[in-house]
């Protein structure tokens, strides 16, 4: 930047660089927020013609909330929402328990076979669920769990990524406090629960947020495992809703999307500081 502007006065050059910077940042922000605003506005439109009027207009007189009612008439929307909440919450809670305990064992305990087990964990990082989805479906089917929420919960509980992330963090904690606790007679479990966990809030929040986001958004597993509409999660539910209308009632689809996004937006804004810090630090922690 500076080389290109040397011929101008340096002050003018700096001003130009600043204007350009904000132009790029602003366009990027607009490109990301405008589609959401457009879909929210579409959810309030009375007709498809209005939804697709270009350039988009905002005429308060023609706005309607009827589309939201139509969503719940067409699909069991609140059921989808509840199912998504159950799956994401249970997977996240279970994953935090299994990952933190396993990570503690790998970071602090001495036992036979540790190297082999850890190598298995790291190796399984390379085998994503997309590869094993077929036998996973057969396992669930043999267990009689297909078409239940268990089929969406159980495969998510073990997380090699989560164990690795927390192990890295635990390894970085000072050992002094633990030694002191041991001298006071604390067992491994008490050391873990009273010393390690309280020092690991941010790392655990990172894993929790990444895990919840992933399972909240997943489309593949529910599509494979669930056949009853009533047991579907929100991502599939939206596709089902969109599939009901090939033409016409686009406002209803927009309303369905809006109903799926607004709660996420509220949580996102409420927990923004945590979410931003957690995601930002996921790179630093590995």
């Amino acid at each position, binding site marked *: 930047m500076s080389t290109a502007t040397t011929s101008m006065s340096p002050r003018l050059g700096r001003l130009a660089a600043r204007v350009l910077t904000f132009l790029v940042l602003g366009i990027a922000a607009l490109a990301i927020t405008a589609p959401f605003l457009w879909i929210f506005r579409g959810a309030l439109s009375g007709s498809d013609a209005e939804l697709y009027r270009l350039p988009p207009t905002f005429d308060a007189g023609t706005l309607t909330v009827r589309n939201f009612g139509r969503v719940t008439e067409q699909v069991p929307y609140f059921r989808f929402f509840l199912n998504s909440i159950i799956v994401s919450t249970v997977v996240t809670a279970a994953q935090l328990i299994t990952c933190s305990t396993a990570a503690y064992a790998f970071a602090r305990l001495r036992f036979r076979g540790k190297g082999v087990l850890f190598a298995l964990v790291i190796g399984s990082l390379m085998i994503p669920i997309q590869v094993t989805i077929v036998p996973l479906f057969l396992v669930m089917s043999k267990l009689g769990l297909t078409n239940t929420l268990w089929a969406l919960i159980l495969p998510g509980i073990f997380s090699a990524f989560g164990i690795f992330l927390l192990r890295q963090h635990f390894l970085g904690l000072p050992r002094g406090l633990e030694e002191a606790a041991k001298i006071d007679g604390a067992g491994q479990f008490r050391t873990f629960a009273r010393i390690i966990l309280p020092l690991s809030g941010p790392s655990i929040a990172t894993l929790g947020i990444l895990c919840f986001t992933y399972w909240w958004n997943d*489309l593949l597993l529910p599509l494979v495992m669930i056949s009853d509409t009533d047991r579907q999660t929100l991502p599939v539910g939206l596709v089902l809703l969109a599939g009901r209308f090939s033409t016409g009632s686009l406002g209803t689809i927009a309303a369905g999307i809006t109903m799926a996004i607004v709660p996420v937006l509220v949580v996102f804004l409420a927990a923004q500081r945590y979410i931003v810090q957690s995601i930002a630090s996921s790179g630093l922690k590995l």
Partner: protein
Amino acid sequence: MTTSSTLRPGVGDRSVTDPGPPAPRPRGDGAAALAFLTPSIITFLVFVLAPTVGVLVLSFYNWNLLSDGTFVGLDNFDRLIHDGRLLGVYGSTTYMALAILAVNVVLGLLLAVLLETRMPRWLRGFFRLSYLFPFVVSASAVALIWRFLLNKDLGLVNYLLGLVHVDRIDWLGSSAFAPVSVIIVNSWKTIGFSILVYIAGLQSIPDQLREAAIVDGAGAWTRFWRITFPLLSPTIFFLVVINTINSFQIFAEPRVLTQGGPGDSSRTIVEYLYDRAFGDFDLGYASAIGITFALILVVLTAIQFWFSRRWTFY
């Protein structure tokens, strides 16, 4: 539920058997380790290891959902070689994955560096939050929104392009632009993640280094390439790994936007596997495809670690 019951015995033993004075430290923590690892071991065995072995076994069978299948030796692998579509699907998967990777790594870095400019805190916060928000929205909602926006005749994108006299583009219905649509939509969703990781990387670079360079008279351009970029290499490497792995596994975007079409132009390997398994119920063949995919992921990971040794400065 199972976790607490498996954890307790080990804990109980300890607190009962060594009260007051500190006992000499035991040589191993086998019992405790078992208790701590049991939940992970069980879920790993049933939902990771068994299905992984299952993929290998299934790939030697002709298996549909109705019967338990017959052993067919290497037939499925023979079919892989003669499957004309498979190579095309891998081609489009690779094309889209590399483009998404490039957008995330390059555009993400640009935006993250620009965000370092002096500006009011609320404005920086607004930029960050708006870039990140699509990351927490489900891919199917994102793809449905873009299905509206990219509509050939009525979509906002073609309208805006029309303002600058670009002819209408058939974003979702032409084999040239369908993969571009998937690239745009997935990058749009994920770039906020990359930007945030970059910001954290940039903040971990000590200010003194850049200040020293300013004192030495280095311009912004030199400072970026001589100081920021090399010190950012671990971050770049992390993002390359994460984005490669994620973008090769794309499923929702093409599924919702284009159904993989037209032809196989925007089909990803996961979508192809899904169709063979749960569209044709050809579970054996789908497993053989899964093995090729796993091998590719292993090779990619190996290549990345080899590269990381060459050009990151830890």
